[in-house]
């Protein structure tokens, strides 16, 4: 196995008395596609909040590209190349679509891009995602699918090595799901590693090379999609005793 891109080592996170993550480890190779699944409240979102820096883990360590980032604030992690989308889209509402992309370009990716070409960069990304027509639209007027795409486009504009996609397909139609999957595949081909959190099993199974299953704050299974489908522990977690 090559040196991991991301190495989450035994992290723990609790809220008051409630333990959301209990001694969970995850690792990810460069360019790998990882699915993260589990029932509601199993700790998926807490996990990615800890990885992206929105929350700080209580115990354990997070190493990214060989560097311990456990104590780094979220913006520093974004600058190192960790980008995420949000389950409920969080666009910058007072800005246009293209302005939304300029924020990560000017902050997260600032040291890694050509400052003179920043607008072209943004346009390129919009084109790749299929939002170029809407570049100057106010992002409050977007449809659901466009909003999801904007989430991804903005994460992309941060020039990540690791993209965490948090339920980017929830509530979309079957064709729209395929459209988003296509985008994520192209992205990955460009060398970006992806962690996908998803409830739509069809999508996760198709996309992931490897899947990690969380339940009640613990990792209960890990392996290629086919193995996971037949894992009795996973079945129990999803269907109950």
């Amino acid at each position, binding site marked *: 196995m090559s040196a991991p891109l991301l190495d989450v080592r035994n992290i723990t996170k609790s809220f008051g008395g409630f333990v959301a993550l209990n001694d969970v480890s995850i690792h990810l190779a460069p360019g790998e596609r990882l699915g993260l699944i589990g029932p509601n409240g199993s700790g998926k979102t807490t996990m990615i909040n800890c990885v*992206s*820096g*929105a929350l700080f883990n209580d115990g354990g360590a997070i190493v990214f590209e060989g560097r311990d980032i456990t104590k780094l*604030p*979220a*913006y520093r992690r*974004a*600058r190192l190349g960790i*980008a*995420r989308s*949000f389950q409920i889209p*969080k*666009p*910058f*509402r*007072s*800005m246009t679509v293209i*302005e939304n992309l*300029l*924020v*990560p370009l*000017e*902050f*997260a*990716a*600032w040291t890694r891009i050509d400052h003179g070409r920043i607008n072209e960069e943004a346009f390129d990304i919009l084109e790749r995602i299929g939002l170029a027509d809407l570049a100057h639209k106010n992002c409050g007027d977007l449809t659901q699918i466009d909003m999801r795409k904007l989430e991804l486009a*903005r994460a992309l*504009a*941060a020039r990540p090595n690791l993209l965490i996609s948090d339920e980017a397909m929830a509530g979309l139609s079957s064709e729209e799901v395929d459209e988003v999957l296509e985008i994520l595949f192209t992205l990955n081909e460009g060398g970006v590693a992806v962690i996908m959190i998803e409830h739509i099993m069809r999508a996760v199974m198709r996309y992931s090379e490897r899947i990690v299953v969380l339940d009640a704050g613990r990792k209960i299974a890990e392996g290629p999609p086919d193995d996971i489908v037949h894992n009795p522990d996973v079945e129990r977690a999803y269907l109950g005793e």
Partner: protein
Amino acid sequence: MGRFWLGATGVFMAGLLFTGAVDNEFYFFSGYVILQGLIMATAWNILGGFTGYVNFGSAGFFAVGAYISVALHQALALPLPFLILASGMVCGLMGLATGYLTLRLKGIYFAISTLAMAIVLETVITNWEYVGGASGAYILTPKDSLFFASYVELLFMVMLIIAIAAVAFARYLSTSRTGKGLTAIRDDELAAECMGVPTLRLKLVSATAMGVFMGMAGAPFPFFITFVDPLSAFSLFIAVNAIAMPLIGGTKVWYGPVIGALILGLTQEITTVTISSELNLLIVGVVLIGFITLAPGGIVGLVQDFSRKRLRSKAAPSAGGDR
């Protein structure tokens, strides 16, 4: 030199000309009050409008500025520019400290702590005998007013310079890369942080700048009013205006508070000498609520909406059926 600086120089020269050409001090006293409002509004907006963190303690910063000025004037008899710089520095540090302690929390906690801080400061100054405490302090207007005809003209020009500085800084902030970060914070702080915006640092920069300009606005106040006591320095009216002016003008752009301050300030100065009564105060309150509920973008927002509509209706016939 951009158009903004040309404009600013123009305003400054016009101010100078005004002091030279007009003898009637009334305009300078009124102008001073309006400029004071303008600086406070701009300062408030640097934090409140750009990042969405509401400061209820504007009067606290203002009063500390005024009292630093009283204390240093009594202790060392420093000239006005030094007093202004000192007040700006102290209040800037105060903004930084408050920000550091509370800006990591949700905005509402910041709002409440500024409120609490204003009261703590009022208590401290009320008990600070050196600057007169609750009995207040007299500051006699200096005899020397440089080459101006009277001291109030000098004060007016000083305020004009501070106002230009405050507006220029606000404009710089909002048009720079930092400004984009601030807007992102206002729209969604978590998303901003995850997009690489150093939110805490930017908020601290805004809080410090807010403090600096509020302190500077307060520094000349004792000279303007000659007698300052905690009740007049910590006046609710100052806090209300500092919030109402940006909200009426528009919080999202640097010129919003300027427009709000000019309109509200002028209205207040005019009503004072025409129809003053409680009704007058009521109008301020009702207009404020009206703007907040009906036109959350303020006057600037209204104008933008209006011109966008006009643009659309003009463009519609020629571009009909294109899309």
